């Protein structure tokens, strides 16, 4: 008998004829928040992870992205240091910043910073979700450079994790990002920045 058939057979033996009937109780939905409160909550929760949040109007996104890069990289950075996800609107990009051209993933490590959009953002937990689309970029793009700048638009913000899952494609390669990479492995003391980007800047437009 194949291992597959044997394991499945064991499960059937273990469960027997009478399988338990289980009702799953409903879970209350998220608290209802006005749009402004939702953005405020997102900003507060993202900052809690020691990430930087810069709020602006939709028109101010380009200038705010530049300000975020100034903060993260220090003045004097070159546009060539910043790699941009291919679906990021032209207006948001620092002029002269190269687009991810699909080069071997490991070569992305040469860039100092990445600029992407997001698929959705969760206010309650301060989470950004990247979905591998042109706007979010492939997974390695938001992983290897040491600074990640993400632009979030007001309409992308949802109250809680279940709302986000409802908006996402389960087949897409998703990365849920809650603050910069961190570890608590040494005496459970949180240290930001291990293997993923050590600096996270969120530009929140709206």
């Amino acid at each position, binding site marked *: 008998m194949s291992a597959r058939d044997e394991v499945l057979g064991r499960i059937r033996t273990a469960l027997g004829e009478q399988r338990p009937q289980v009702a799953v109780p409903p879970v209350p939905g998220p608290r209802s928040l006005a749009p402004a409160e939702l953005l405020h909550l997102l900003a507060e929760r993202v900052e809690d992870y020691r990430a930087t949040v810069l709020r602006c109007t939709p028109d101010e996104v380009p200038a705010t992205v530049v300000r975020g890069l100034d903060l993260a990289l220090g003045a004097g950075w070159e546009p060539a240091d910043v790699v941009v996800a291919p679906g990021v609107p032209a207006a948001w990009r620092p002029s002269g910043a190269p687009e991810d051209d699909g080069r071997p993933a490991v070569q992305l490590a040469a860039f100092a910073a990445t600029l992407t959009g997001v698929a959705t953002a969760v206010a309650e937990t301060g989470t950004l979700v990247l979905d591998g689309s042109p706007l979010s970029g492939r997974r390695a793009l938001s992983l290897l450079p040491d600074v990640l700048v993400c632009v979030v638009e007001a309409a992308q913000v949802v109250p809680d994790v279940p709302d986000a899952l409802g908006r996402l494609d389960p087949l897409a390669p998703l990365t849920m990002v809650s603050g910069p990479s961190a*570890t608590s492995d040494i005496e459970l003391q949180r240290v930001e920045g291990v*293997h993923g980007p050590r600096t996270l800047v969120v530009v929140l437009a709206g």
Partner: protein
Amino acid sequence: MTTTPQDARAEPTPLAPGAPRSGTTFLGLPTAPRGVGHLRGTQSFPDAARTALRDGQLRANLGRATTTIRGKRAAVVAEVPHWEQLRQAGKALKAATMAHLDEHLEELERQVTARGGTVHWARDATEANRIVTELVRATGSDEVVKVKSMATQEIGLNEALEAAGIEAIETDLAELIVQLGEDSPSHILVPAIHKNRSEIREIFRRTIPGVDPGLTDEPRQLAMAARTHLRERFLRARVAVSGANFAVAETGTLAVVESEGNGRMCLTLPQTLITVMGIEKVVPRWEDLGVFLQLLPRSSTGERMNPYTSTWAGVTPGDGPQEFHLVLLDNGRTAVLADEVGREALHCIRCSACLNVCPVYERAGGHAYGSVYPGPIGAVLSPQLTGVEDNASLPYASSLCGACYDVCPVAIDIPSILVHLRAEHVEAQTRPTAESVAFRGLSRVMSNPRLWHLAQRAAGLGRFLSRGRPTLPAVLPPPVSAWTRTRDLPTPPGKSFVQQWTEEHRR
């Protein structure tokens, strides 16, 4: 000679193919085989715990760490008004999934396959190790990068790969500390919780080639040393091995929850990804993740959300590994499933909250449990995976205080399973042990008022004997001495309630 429950621990018997396995349940379902993996220690819990209790440094490290994490967890759980409903939903979802586990696994297999992945089934640790070793060999690589995974620790995958000439590099910081220190994990979430910062610095100084000799014990500096050490290995890795926190049957989506980004490195950069997952990790629907992703991080690291959660379904052209293998592991899980009371242990989402609140774990440490699953969940899971005869002392490694149940995000009734396993163990005994004598004796005494009075008066004698000493001395004759040796017997009151009542009402 005492008659502590003797664990038939892992004798170093190499298992020939077809050799008898460690045991089977009454339904004939095999438990995890002996001689492979890390579900059995070399000592019984009381013996191992006694050694650990003498280690003041260990107790200090553990006490500090668990106090911190308990506080963080309590704060983020308190901010969710519907926590209890979430918890009950998590519990019910797990129970409903287990009731149709076969169907969900078949659906998962269909979906993963449809998206370009390959699904393998492993009856036990030996088979899983063989499958992974062959898959790695087929790539021609002699090293793999690993994301922290309980399942691969359970089956002893690193040792199996090493025997095949393949180096397995642990990339989680705590796992790296454990691996470099040639140590073993002592906590589900923070495997190096028993080490403090200066001990970690010493390990790094000794083992990382080219490490800055001026390395301090500042956690940030230590984390940066690990970053530098692993960076180049991530970039050159061709094969990664991971576990999975969840797998969604209806979509074939796998999920890994982590903090450092080492998981993302492993799940994204290599050409080939091999995921080893216990069969109980499947959830039926995509939306079920909404419940578990709220429960897990708050219970685990005490955060609203962990830094990174990655999900993927099969392979995605142009993004991440182009070859994906999923190994579905039984290794005793179906034997656990066969026990209507014990099967709840399969609901565990490995958050480690029960370890952090357990007074026994806090004092004895994770190594005393002898298994990769320590603490309260280990005390109920390990003996069921191996058969209770191979981990006979673990169901007694608890004071039944119930704190583990209170914090468990999927409301596993660990105390009840412990009592159930004790009863099972007592029943299986052919020779009397301290526990079997105590348990049988207790039920006899409690059902007979005259004996009960006598016993209470005898307890008054116990008070006399224990005056000025922390525990009853081991002068009581075996087998009772074995029971009292590892327990702080509460000093009984001078008079029993009945004596007092009778005296007062005589006046």
